[in-house]
């Protein structure tokens, strides 16, 4: 009996500094909401958000060589975690730029002036007229980012679950705060929340079954229990399946994709871009860690399951995207299809698969956030012109924006000289090396189908007569311009000289256990 003695956990504060900085700034920014005057809040919040993201990014870069497990095994800082942290922070920075935009919409920024005012009410009109802004979005944004950082570095299922919720809850709120088409936005937030809570329950159920199997929630502990008990019980398989359902929901894999089109369409485009890029990265980061670290020893049991889901995801995403008439819904199905392609890297279950997935996630993140930046700029009198028919002839009326969007579409389709090609090549090669040739053949067929609808947008922009009510490209402020420029630069540069990033992810191809 060791009553009275307590060994405090040893925490490597420097190694987890990025999480602490974002978390601390989020708390600080809640206090700013309480104590700073109404007019000064927005600039103060922006300085805090952008400053903290940059400082956190500095800490990630400055300790690129750190490989450690800290806080009694709860957090692991290894190669994949640091790469994902860097990607998440840079993409969050671009997402923050999109959310800070306030010149595109003549009536204000991208969020409702007051989310609590009833849509269409006199209150709403007055708040909008007075130019009030809902600055609470910034603390919520920072909490979400801190949850993502924890999610990809969590080494036990309990912390992973808490991080999942810290990441998701603010996103449910942000999705429901669009300035225009507010009822659609609120509906999407409610759907996202209900289905997200449902999937969290699956995650928890799986975690508790795995605890019953192994007596621990730590990922390496589960791996040990698996190798210690050669005859795997149904507890393990059931627990793993339920846990993975929770993660695949966040990834947007078929059949857990139902929320994606509605949320992508309803949420403000800036939030959609941020969420589409970063949540996918965080969720795949956690999925890779769970599959490789905890369940690496039984890959023969989970590979068939993920085979089926990957094929379903690629084909349902690509085929349903073909018939979409709304550009945001089309990109939502495209993101589903892309999840299927990234899952090839997970199924490969090798160092190459891991580094190829990381590269794919980064390339996808920049392409997506750029595409949504373009969508937020293409407008009609009633707000964003999301109907595909309004985009007809856009390439001729606005050549620069048309060309930039075409680059993103080509990259998502995986055409050479864009980042998407290198990314697809990487995961396909990794999957072939692991003997999943048939899966790669299916993926190639799916990407040909997918290429069709990406190219269709380009054809629409360049070879169709302009619509009766053509969309106009609004002139953005520096915020959106920076995000868009970063997105298109990374997409093109990674397509032409991918070597530096390929080397970076190749050096980060092992999870620390």
């Amino acid at each position, binding site marked *: 009996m060791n009553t009275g003695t307590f060994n405090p*956990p040893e925490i490597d504060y420097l190694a987890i500094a990025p999480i602490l900085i974002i978390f601390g700034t989020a708390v600080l920014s809640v206090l700013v909401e309480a104590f700073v005057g109404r007019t000064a809040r927005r600039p103060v919040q922006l300085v805090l958000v952008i400053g903290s993201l940059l400082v956190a990014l500095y800490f990630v870069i400055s300790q690129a060589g750190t490989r450690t497990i800290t806080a009694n095994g709860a957090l692991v800082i290894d190669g994949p975690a640091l790469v994902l942290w860097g990607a998440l922070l840079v993409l969050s920075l671009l997402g923050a730029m999109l959310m800070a935009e306030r010149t595109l919409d003549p009536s204000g920024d991208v969020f409702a002036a007051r989310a609590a005012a009833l849509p269409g009410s006199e209150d709403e009109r007055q708040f909008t007229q007075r130019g009030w802004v809902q600055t609470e979005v910034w603390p919520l944004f920072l909490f979400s980012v801190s949850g993502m950082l924890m999610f990809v570095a969590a080494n036990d299922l309990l912390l992973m679950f808490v991080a999942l919720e810290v990441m998701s809850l603010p996103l449910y709120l942000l999705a429901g705060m669009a300035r225009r088409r507010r009822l659609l936005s609120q509906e999407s937030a409610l759907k996202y929340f209900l289905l997200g809570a449902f999937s969290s329950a699956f995650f928890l159920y799986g975690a508790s079954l795995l605890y019953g199997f192994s007596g621990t929630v730590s990922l390496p502990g589960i791996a040990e229990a698996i190798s210690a008990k050669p005859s795997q019980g149904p507890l393990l398989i059931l627990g793993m399946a339920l846990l993975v359902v929770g993660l695949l929901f966040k990834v947007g894999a078929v059949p857990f994709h139902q929320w994606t089109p509605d949320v992508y369409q309803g949420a403000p485009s800036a939030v959609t871009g941020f969420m589409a890029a970063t949540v996918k990265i965080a969720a795949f980061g956690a999925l890779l860690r769970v599959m490789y670290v905890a369940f690496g020893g039984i890959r023969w049991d989970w590979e068939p399951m993920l085979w089926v889901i990957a094929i379903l995801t690629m084909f349902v995403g690509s085929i349903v995207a073909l018939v979409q008439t709304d550009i945001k819904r089309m990109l939502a199905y495209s993101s589903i299809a892309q999840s299927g392609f990234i899952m090839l890297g997970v199924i490969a279950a090798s160092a190459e698969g891991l580094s190829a997935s990381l590269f794919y996630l980064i390339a996808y993140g920049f392409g997506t956030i750029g595409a949504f930046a373009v969508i937020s700029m293409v407008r009609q009198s009633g707000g964003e012109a999301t109907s595909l028919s309004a985009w007809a002839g856009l390439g001729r009326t606005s050549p620069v924006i048309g060309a930039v969007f075409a680059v993103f579409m080509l990259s998502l389709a995986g055409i050479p000289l864009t980042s998407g090609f290198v990314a697809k090549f990487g995961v396909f090669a990794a999957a072939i090396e692991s003997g999943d040739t048939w899966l790669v053949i299916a993926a190639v067929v799916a990407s040909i189908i997918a290429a069709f609808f990406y190219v269709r947008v380009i054809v629409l922009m360049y070879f169709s007569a302009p619509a009766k009510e053509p969309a106009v490209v609004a002139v953005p402020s520096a915020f959106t311009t920076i995000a868009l420029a970063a997105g298109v630069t990374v997409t093109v540069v990674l397509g032409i000289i991918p070597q530096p990033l390929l080397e970076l992810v190749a050096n980060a191809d092992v999870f620390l256990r």
Partner: protein
Amino acid sequence: MNEVIEPNLGETLVFWICGGLAVVGALGMVISRKAVHSALWIALTMINLAILYVANSAPFLGMVQVVVYTGAVMMLFLFVLMVVGVDSSDSLIETIKGQRVAALLLGVGLTIMLVAGLGAGLSGAGTIGLDAANAADGGNVQGLARLMFSDYIIAFQATGALLITAAVGAMVLTHREYWQPRKSQRELSQDRFTDGGHPGNKPSPGVYARHNAVDTPALLPDGSTSAISIPAPLRARDDARAIDVNDITNVRRLTEGESE
């Protein structure tokens, strides 16, 4: 490996009674059509789970379950239901055809899979119990505290982010602000008397032998009608009943004639 403990008869009885009631409560919660009934059913489930926790040597968890969930959260939930309206019930119209049948089939499938899997996985597995774990730190609460502040310190801290997010989110979605300064009692009082305000009770609508309704204006001493005796909405809709002067003279003639 800890030694395996055989459950005694009392524990088995408690398990089957409370476990059964918990399942009944869970089913009742899903089947009830009224939200209040659902809330009460889930309270039943939670109390039975609390008893099971205590029976399994986790008294702290059991108490927390009763105090926090059954006591605070569920009662708060009931308050909200009462405020929103006890009568509101879900629409039972299927918006997607065949949705309910499909959901039922998939749900039953999942249940069979889970029950079969758990049954196969747990049969033969012995009971370890919490006694050894509780003794290690000198008690149940001490053991929990040690875990919370050592292995799970980060998760424990991170739940703080959840609570802050919940509070900020609730404020953002529900806190109504005013775009103009609210009037004080003094200003309201001044408004009532200035600008032609009417400080006292307004005259009540006219009550006559033939008309006795709010849309009938009151008569002033000089025989004219008083507009403010009629409610403002009726006035706005032009629904005030006109007084026929002939009626007045008729009535006067009749009454004077009778008195002669």
